[in-house]
C-alpha cells in the first residue's frame, strides 16, 4: 500500500487554482522532499493530505480519506505546520500530559529523553521559550509519536543554522528507521539534499518532476564547460546554462556520461540548481507551446 496516493487532486481558492491535478504516489519508508516556489501549492497539497482542506479528486493517505477521517488518520500521522503552532499559554509538562492523554502512540519517556538534551524546563510556558526551543519541543513531541507518516512544512523556518542542522540530524538519527515515511518542504533546499531519498518539484499546482535521489544522480549532470567547447556542449541540448567566472555551467538530462566527460568535470547538480533549471526549462517550453 502506498503511503500517499493522489490522482487528479485539485483545489481552487476563488478563481485561483492552487492544485491543478496533482498526481503523486509516495511509497512507505522514504523521505520525500517537496520543493516548489512560493505559491506553487506545496502547503495546499500538504493541508489536503493532512485533512485540513477539502479538495476535488482522489486522495488516500495510509488507506484513508483525510478529509472525512482526520481524527483516525492522526493516530498514524504527525505533522509540524509551517509556523509555530504550539499554544503559547501551555506549559511544557501540560503539553506532555495532554499528548500522552490523547495519543495512542505517544511515548512520553522518549519525549522526556529528547527534552533532557535541551535547555527546555518542564514548568516553562511555550510563550517564554525561544523560537528554536519551540521547534525543539515540537520535534521532541512528534518524534516520540510512533507515526507512520511525518509531514514537515517548513519546519526550520526562522531558525539559525545551528538549530537547523541539529533538527535534521536528530530527525535522521532518532526518528527515521526506513519504515516510516517523512514528507518535508523547505526553501532551504541545500539542507535537505543529503537527507531526502526522493525528490518532487511542484510548480503552479502541478508535479513537474518526481524521481528518487538515485534517479536524479543517474539522470542529471552538470558540467563546467570551457568557452572553446561551448558549441559542442550546446549540441547535446542542455536543459540549462548559466555563466560563472571562468566558463559556463551546463546541465544535462539523460545524456551519455562519457560524452559529457569530454567537455569538462561532470558532477550531480545541487537540488537548488536543478530546481531553477527545471522550472525555467518548463516555463520556456510553456512559452514555446503558446507561440
Amino acid at each position, binding site marked *: *500500500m502506498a503511503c500517499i496516493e493522489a490522482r487528479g487532486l485539485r483545489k481552487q481558492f476563488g478563481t485561483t487554482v492552487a492544485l491543478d491535478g496533482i498526481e503523486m504516489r509516495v511509497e512507505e519508508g522514504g523521505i520525500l522532499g517537496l520543493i516548489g516556489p512560493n505559491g506553487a501549492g506545496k502547503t495546499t497539497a500538504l493541508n489536503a493530505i493532512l*485533512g*485540513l482542506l477539502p479538495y476535488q479528486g482522489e486522495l488516500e493517505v495510509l488507506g484513508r480519506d483525510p478529509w472525512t477521517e482526520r*481524527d483516525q488518520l*492522526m*493516530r498514524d500521522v504527525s*505533522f509540524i*505546520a509551517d509556523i509555530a503552532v*504550539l499554544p503559547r499559554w501551555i506549559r511544557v509538562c501540560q503539553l506532555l500530559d495532554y499528548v500522552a492523554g*490523547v495519543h495512542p502512540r505517544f511515548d512520553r519517556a522518549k519525549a522526556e529523553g529528547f527534552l533532557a538534551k535541551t535547555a527546555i524546563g518542564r514548568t516553562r510556558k511555550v510563550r517564554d521559550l525561544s523560537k528554536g526551543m519551540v521547534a525543539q519541543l515540537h520535534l521532541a513531541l512528534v518524534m516520540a509519536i510512533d507515526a507512520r507518516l511525518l509531514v514537515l512544512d517548513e519546519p526550520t523556518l526562522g531558525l539559525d543554522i545551528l538549530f537547523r542542522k541539529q533538527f535534521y540530524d536528530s530527525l535522521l538519527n532518532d526518528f527515521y528507521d526506513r519504515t516510516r515515511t517523512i514528507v518535508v518542504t523547505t526553501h532551504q533546499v541545500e539542507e535537505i539534499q543529503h537527507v531526502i531519498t526522493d525528490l518532487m518539484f511542484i510548480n503552479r499546482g502541478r508535479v513537474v518532476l518526481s524521481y528518487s535521489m538515485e534517479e536524479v544522480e543517474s539522470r542529471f549532470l552538470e558540467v563546467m564547460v570551457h568557452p572553446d567547447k561551448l558549441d559542442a556542449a550546446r549540441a547535446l541540448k542542455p536543459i540549462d546554462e548559466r555563466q560563472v567566472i571562468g566558463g559556463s555551467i551546463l546541465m544535462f538530462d539523460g545524456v551519455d556520461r562519457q560524452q559529457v566527460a569530454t567537455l569538462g568535470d561532470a558532477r550531480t547538480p545541487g537540488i537548488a540548481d536543478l530546481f531553477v533549471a527545471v522550472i525555467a526549462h518548463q516555463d520556456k517550453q510553456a512559452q514555446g507551446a503558446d507561440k
Partner: protein
Amino acid sequence: MSSQSNAMPESSLRPQGTATTAIPAARLMYWSVRRELWEIRSIYVAPVAAACLFLFGFSISILHLLVAKHAAPSLDLMQQRELFGQPYEFIEDLIMGTTLLVGLFYSADALYGERRDRSILFWKSTPVSDLITVLSKASIPMVVLPLLAFAITVLTQWIMLMISSAVLLGSGHNAAILWSRVGIFHRWPMLLFHFLCIHGLWQSPIYAWLLLVSGWARRVPILWATLPPLTVGITEKVAFNTTYFGTLIGNRFTGGSEGIAIMERGRQMDPMMLFAPLHFLINPGLWIGLAVTAAFLAAAVRLRRYRGPV
C-alpha cells in the same frame, strides 16, 4: 499524574495497514476539558475571587449581625428569615452572575481563540475529532461551570455560617437561632437543580449560539453574536411594535417564568417546590431549547472541519 497514560499495551506493536487502537472517547473528552481549564483559568478563578471578596465583605458585616441578634426577639419569623438569610441569597446571585458572564465570554472565544493564535493546527494534529473538541468546549458553560458554581456557593455559604457562628459564640451568644433561620441546607438540592437545569440546560442555546459564531466569525465574534439578535429585536419592535423575540431571548437568560418560580419557591421553602423540578422537565420550552442547542453544536462541529487559522 499522567504516568498511567503511557502504559498503552499496543505501543510496542506496529500494526501495518490497520488502524491503531483508539483512545476511548471518554478519555479524549477528559483531556480536552482539562486542556480548557488549563487555558482559561478564569473559569474557576473568577467565581472563587468573587466568593473571596464577598467573604471579606461578609466578615465586616458580621458586626451588623451582632446588632441583629439583639433585635431578633422582637421580629416575627419571616423578618428573621429575611435578616439572616439575605447574605446567603446574595452570594448565590453573585456566583450565578459571575459564572453567567464567564460562560458567555468563554463561549464567544472558545472556537475563535484557537484560530486566532493558529494553535488549531496543533490541535488538529492530534487524534481528537471535531465532535469531541466542540462537545468539550460546550461542556464548560453547560456542565463544568454550573457544578463549579454550585460547589463554590455551597462552600462559601458554609464558611459564612461558620464565621457567623464563631462570632456569635465568641461574644457569648447562642448561635442556634442563626442555624434555624438561615435555612440553607434545604436550599442546596434546589440550588444544585437550579444550576444544572437553568444554567446548564435552559441557557444552553445561548452558549451553543456563541460557540457556533466563535467558530464561524473571522473577527470580533462577540459582535457577530450579539448584533444580529439585537437588530432582529429592534426591527420587530419598529415593524410590529411587539417584543416577542426580545422576550424569547430574555427568557433564556432568566430561566423563564418556570426558572424564576423554582428559585423563589426554593427560597421561601415552599413545600410545593418539590414538584417544581418535574414541572420544569416537562416544559416544552426546555426541550425546544435543547433541540436548538443540538442543532447549533452540530453546525459548529461541521464548521470546525473547514476552519483553519484566521
